């Protein structure tokens, strides 16, 4: 449909991977391994504690102390947003966009379908991440860094279903920028 290439990443794979690895090592040295998704439930939980305190206090999950206030993990996610925005600005990648190259190559320019798919995808992603006690950061990346048993079934399920969903959603391949 639309002929445009996927652009290169700012860093090559070796430098980018090394940088991420060093951040993980630093995180394990100073506090605990990286994790992102718990805080979505914590933010929801803090709101529920305000709206329905009796329900929240008796809940087996959000009744726990770590679901009652913003701590280390919450500020990590705030930092993540800040760091990504600063990095994007520094490499001139800070700009409003609604669709992606792979999306336009398969489904054209209309943003409505892309936004609907992304809402549903986000719902499934966090539902799945909480079931698995973590996401691509906590259960996959931090899981393998610590050789956790749970990383193994999680990786198989995530990449297996991820590849299948990608094949169904994006059958056509755009040009990959050199």
């Amino acid at each position, binding site marked *: 449909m639309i002929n445009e290439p996927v652009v290169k990443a700012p860093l090559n794979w070796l430098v980018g991977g090394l940088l991420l690895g060093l951040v993980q090592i630093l995180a394990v040295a100073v506090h605990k391994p990286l994790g992102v998704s718990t805080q979505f439930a914590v933010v929801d939980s803090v709101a529920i504690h305000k709206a329905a305190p009796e329900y929240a206090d008796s809940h087996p999950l959000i009744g726990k102390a770590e679901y009652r206030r913003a701590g280390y993990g919450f500020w990590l996610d705030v930092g993540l947003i800040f760091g990504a925005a600063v990095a994007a600005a520094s490499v001139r990648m800070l700009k409003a966009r609604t669709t992606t190259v792979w999306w336009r190559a398969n489904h054209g320019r209309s943003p409505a379908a892309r936004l609907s798919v992304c809402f549903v995808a*986000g719902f499934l992603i966090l539902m799945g991440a909480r079931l698995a006690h973590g996401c691509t950061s906590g259960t996959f990346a931090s899981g393998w860094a610590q050789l956790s048993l749970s990383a193994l079934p999680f990786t198989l399920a995530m990449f297996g279903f991820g590849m299948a969903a990608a094949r169904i959603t994006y059958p056509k391949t755009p040009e990959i920028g050199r």
Partner: protein
Amino acid sequence: MTSGLTGFLIGTAFGASLLLSGLADPDKILGALRLKDFHAIRTIAVFVLVSMVGVWVLDLAGLANFSIKPATIWTVLAGGALLGVGFGMSGYCPGTGLACAAAGRIDALVSVVGMFAGALAFILVHPYVVGPLEATADFGKTTLPEITTSSSTLWVVPIAAIGAVVLWMTRPRKGKPIDQASSPREP
């Protein structure tokens, strides 16, 4: 330093690294899941191998702060499958969704709204569904070395060595289209 400030600083480094490495780019993730663009696969492989070796060294020095997730096999498999479907549909995951929203991607922001809805649904169904599922096939907060009664050295050294050799042998080179995305731009 307070733990909130520590978290903010590590998060800043993580968010910047996700963006600069190209993992916070749904086009790079889709290319990887479709096995058409090997940039993200190689980046993730280096990320995992470097952190595995680094955490192993920290542990030998007695400096590692571990946080092992419980291996509740059914919920981990179901969760991985649900997350995988969303990942393959959008090219986002929780960390890269936040990073991409911060970079101005409106679709990522909508996926983040979906994530808050997913977390709310999880909280609401937790007492009825998740508790019982977690109680079956629960191996606890265990590691691969523990469950095989071996040492982490016996896992880390071979995995890191094999991974490094494979990454070296398949490295992108000029004129060889093995990793088109990482080779230099043709004139």
